[in-house]
């Protein structure tokens, strides 16, 4: 029983990280209808920048994360401006390849700048606490709490502010948004900024319990894709629910099925979904 509860909590932690990454991916998909294969590289950059800010510049964890959000958000905006914007009228195969090009560049860049080895990120929240008989690290609790706060803030921003509502409007109908005078270019840039920022937060809060290395985004992005297909491409609640579903199934699968193959679970879910419904769950019927 203890193991089960422990694993459920682990699932909550992993799921929180997945949900944050998937949120950024799904926002960009909603606005531009491109699957951003380079999103995992943004996650990886987020991890490295926070780490560098802490170790090289001696910044406090939270300030380092803040810098990381800004920098990665800016990289996201650059990507949109320099790559995806010029390609918006091209056949769909091209923006995928372009994204892969960015991904390869950023990974090589990280390896060149920070080296190929795995690095651990010190966190001020290493202490262990006992809650209801469970042994938890503060960092894991922090991941869950921080993720929930970020999701609430994001939701408030999207629903309650004008700028946020333009993002929603544009994801529902691009031409329509253009007609009612929404500056679609600005919205696209903003979305990439948020998407990059979310990736940076996810990487920075999870790095202390995982590790920082050039390929750290590869598996996460694959799973994030599974999540947004599971939750519906472009759907915000879908990304959150999907994130936790994958998080729980992984942590439980690792315990009760096989630790070796736990990473495969998400992909099996995907294979099953796309076998049953090739256009993903919750996709609009008709065209």
């Amino acid at each position: 029983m203890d193991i089960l509860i422990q694993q459920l909590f682990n699932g909550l932690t992993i799921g929180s990280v997945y949900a944050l990454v998937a949120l950024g991916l799904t926002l960009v998909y909603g606005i531009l209808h491109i699957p951003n294969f380079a999103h995992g590289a943004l996650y990886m950059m987020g991890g490295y920048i926070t780490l560098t800010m802490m170790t090289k510049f001696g910044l406090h964890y939270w300030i380092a994360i803040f810098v990381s959000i800004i920098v990665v958000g800016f990289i996201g905006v650059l990507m949109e401006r320099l790559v995806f914007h010029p390609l918006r009228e091209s056949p769909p195969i091209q923006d995928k390849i372009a994204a892969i090009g960015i991904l390869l560049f950023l990974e090589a860049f990280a390896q060149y700048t920070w080296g190929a080895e795995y690095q651990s990120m010190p966190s001020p929240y290493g202490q262990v606490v006992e809650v209801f008989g469970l042994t938890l690290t503060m960092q894991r609790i922090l991941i869950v709490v921080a993720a929930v706060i970020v999701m609430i803030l994001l939701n408030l921003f999207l629903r309650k502010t004008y700028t946020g509502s333009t993002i929603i409007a544009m994801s529902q109908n691009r031409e329509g948004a253009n007609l009612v005078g929404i500056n679609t270019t600005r919205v696209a840039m903003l979305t990439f900024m948020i998407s990059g920022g979310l990736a940076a937060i996810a990487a920075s809060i999870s790095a202390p319990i995982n590790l920082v290395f050039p390929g750290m985004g590869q598996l996460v992005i694959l799973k994030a894709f599974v999540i947004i297909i599971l939750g519906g491409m472009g759907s915000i609640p879908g990304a959150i629910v999907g994130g936790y579903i994958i998080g729980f199934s992984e942590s439980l699968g690792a315990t009760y099925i096989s630790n070796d193959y736990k990473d495969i679970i998400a992909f099996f879910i995907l294979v099953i979904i796309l076998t049953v419904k090739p256009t993903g769950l919750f996709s609009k019927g008709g065209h």
Partner: protein
Amino acid sequence: MSAVLNKRNIIILFVLVSLVFPLITTNTYLIHVMTLAFIWMIGVYGLNLLAGYTGYLSLAHAGFFAIGAYGLGILTVKAHMSFWLAFVLSLLITGLLGLIVGLIALRSKEHFFAIYTLCLGYIIYLVIDKWESLTEGVRGLIGIPAPQGFGPIKFETEKSHYYLVLFFLLLVILVMYRIVHSLSGRSFIAIRNSEDLALTIGISTARNKLTVFVLSTLFAGLSGALYASFVRFIGPDIGNTAVIFDMLTYLIVGGIGTLTGPLIGTLLVIWLSQLLQDFQQYRMLIFGPLLTLLVIFYPRGIVGGVTDIYRKRMAKKEKQLAGKKDSYIQSDLGAKNQVKEG
């Protein structure tokens, strides 16, 4: 018409140079690199047939490459099968798995297909990595035999191996050339162009896509089997996504959807990487942005870019001629066209 001659000339030139290459150099290292390049070209042709001619970007092809390689490796090393039997069987296994995967994967389109195949590629990699009793896991498979000779012909030296691989490459090019220039090839291009339009002109898109998918996995499997017999050692890393991204780079640089693109792209990128020497592990610092820039400015790579320039020049010449004719035959229409195009 001259574009076709051009294409044929490049292939003929390639055949001639590749045939005499081992005779002009005695440097076995160069022959080694060249043989590896030929092996990759076969896989890249597979990727090109699918992504370039039907528009379906498969990111699982490193997986099929690995299946071909491990098929040969396991059948020879563990099952002690004779080389050529194992070789044929490993291709059949790859093709069969390709058929099964294709039946499911091709139900989805565009990004769903890309994501699906990327995940499938990862599953293949993970299975190879973890199924130690079959694949030896991270230790890798050691001692894969070189191809068996036929009578007096042996494939133990670098040079003879080079010619064996070249033989398969030329076979693949011939097959590609004929397919692309046949009615089947036209059907594939119609599918890439617009699947809806292809359906309305009576093309069974499902059957055509499946045929292409299986054939392209066969090419990937062939490439993998040749790799295993050439390098003699394989580890799970050959199924890693890094491999598919390398293949994609060769294809995009040369020209996706062109017949000579895989030749030019693979040769160029592999030799450039050789020049980078110690910097090689960071080669994507250069090729990553190159990939992105090419897709934005020259989506059909070097071959496509050169063809476009050539065609533009021809069109200009033609227009000058046509302009003169139009001026007294059909002045109205000619003038209008020129305004629009010029």
